[in-house]
């Protein structure tokens, strides 16, 4: 009890006593102009600092407990806010804000000239200066290229044929996301199916395809693909030829006369592809049609690929059409 009493008295003295012994200033002209005392503001700043301390403790207690994100953020954030207000009040009320001026730095022509002189004098006895510089340049450049050369191992820089590889082979069955084999009868009008080649790693741009059924009367494929769509079922790469997003939208109007026509649409930049005409671009920034996968129906009604895509899968690059 006695201890508490002396602590309390000490605290009160700190709080209420003010402007006691001023520090002994060194003699001479003052560098910092004095300001007027602001005891009220001093108390406010003390209050804010203590509030900040309390909030920090609240943060610690909350952290030890259930650590709710909002409460933690409030406690810590308000703690910093209290510190911010305390600092600004200190700046405006407690400490002097007198203004001072300084010269902008000038140029230093003398030192600059000396530097030049040092450089020149250091090399004045060299007889083949240019040749030395050239040789040093050659060594430096060659070394720099040599040191950077291992970066070429980062990837198969020169093997762009990899971009044309696709895992689809003749006879491969189409499976859905769960591995179930897709049958031609599953593909009804106005339904959208994502499929993959059976037994192949799916983390490959050329793996996912979209399969939809187009009314055979509306099919208008290029001449060399006339047998790619059994019963109007068409399959296209699901990877947009613009910027490699998954073409995940299928605009499938119920009643066509009053609606925009059926189309596969990409959700990133809205390239729109026509499944009836071989994946041609109807709208949007894509520069190449969606590659089409030729389909056939197997003996037990399952959908199989008849070969690879009509073109390279994924975003275009220089030379992609060759």
């Amino acid at each position, binding site marked *: 009890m006695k201890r508490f009493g002396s602590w309390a008295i000490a605290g009160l003295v700190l709080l209420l006593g003010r402007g006691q012994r001023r520090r002994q200033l060194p003699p001479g002209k003052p560098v910092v102009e004095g300001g007027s005392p602001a005891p009220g503001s001093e108390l406010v700043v003390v209050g804010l600092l203590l509030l900040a301390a309390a909030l920090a403790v609240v943060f610690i207690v909350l952290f030890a407990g259930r650590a709710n994100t909002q409460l933690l953020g409030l406690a810590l954030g308000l703690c910093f806010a209290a510190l911010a207000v305390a600092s600004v009040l200190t700046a405006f009320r407690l400490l002097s804000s007198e203004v001072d001026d300084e010269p902008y730095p000038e140029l230093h022509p003398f030192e600059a000239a000396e530097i030049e002189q040092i450089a020149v004098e250091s090399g004045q006895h060299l007889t083949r200066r240019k040749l030395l510089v050239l040789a040093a340049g050659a060594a430096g450049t060659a070394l720099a290229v040599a040191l950077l050369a291992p970066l070429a191992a980062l990837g198969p820089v020169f093997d762009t044929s990899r971009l044309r590889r696709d895992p689809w082979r003749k006879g491969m069955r189409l499976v859905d996301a769960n591995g179930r084999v897709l049958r031609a009868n599953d593909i009804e009008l106005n*339904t959208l199916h994502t499929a993959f080649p059976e037994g192949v790693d799916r983390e490959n741009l050329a793996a996912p395809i979209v399969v*939809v059924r187009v009314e055979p009367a509306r099919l208008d494929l290029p001449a060399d693909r006339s047998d790619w769509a059994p019963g109007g079922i068409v399959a296209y790469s699901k990877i947009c030829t613009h910027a490699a997003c998954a073409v995940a939208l299928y605009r499938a109007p119920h*009643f066509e006369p009053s609606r*925009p026509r059926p189309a596969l*649409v990409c959700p990133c930049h809205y390239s729109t592809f026509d499944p009836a005409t071989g994946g041609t671009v109807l*709208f949007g920034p894509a520069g190449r049609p969606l590659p089409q996968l030729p389909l056939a129906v197997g003996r037990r009604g399952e959908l199989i690929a008849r070969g690879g895509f009509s073109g390279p899968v994924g975003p275009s690059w220089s030379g992609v059409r060759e």
Partner: protein
Amino acid sequence: MKPALLIAAFLALVLPQLGGADSGGDLYLQHCASCHGRGGAGVPPGGEHFGPPLQGVGEQAADFYLRTGYMPVQEASQEPVRKSSPFSDAEIRSLVTYIGSFGGPPIPKPQPERGSTSQGLKLFTENCAGCHQVAAQGGLVVGGTAPRLADSTPTEIAEAVRVGPYLMPRFTRRQLSDRDVDSIVRYVQLTQNPDNRGGWGIANLGPIPEGLVAWLLAGGALVGIAVLIGGRER
């Protein structure tokens, strides 16, 4: 005698209202036939009004379109939007029964409690997010809008999946089983009350509202603090 007459009169007035003053068929003729044709035969385009046939759509589709207020729509080319139906609940039921009489699937009865939210998130991402956005906040389909699912009831969701209304594709039972639909419904219900433990969810749309907050809230606050602290050119 008199009380019986009164009761009879009362019943004569009230009963027709209860049973539906206009039967489904009458309502259909009044409000639907001009576009959907008599007996749901449809009206081919060419005239002022035209619309798809309703034979085979069943109570499933009728219930969906009427409850959401997508139908009736003024013109066939207009994009249907969710609105409160001009029909009363009883009228909708009569219409649904009438249209159901043309044949087609019944109203589905989804049971979300039998589904799993995790299966629902997976299926929704694979099949629905491309149009409806992964948190079901709706999205753009060029030529239409895939709506937010905040107001969708479990029945409406199950119906929409099977019907494929307006521009939406439909999903057969072989693609999405009834249990799958239960999971999707359960997931959509979650999106109606998402886990926003990070704080204010700002529409669950991602970087666009986040950018607005960064500029307007944070930028504004910080510039304000700077103005408070710094000097000002008079």
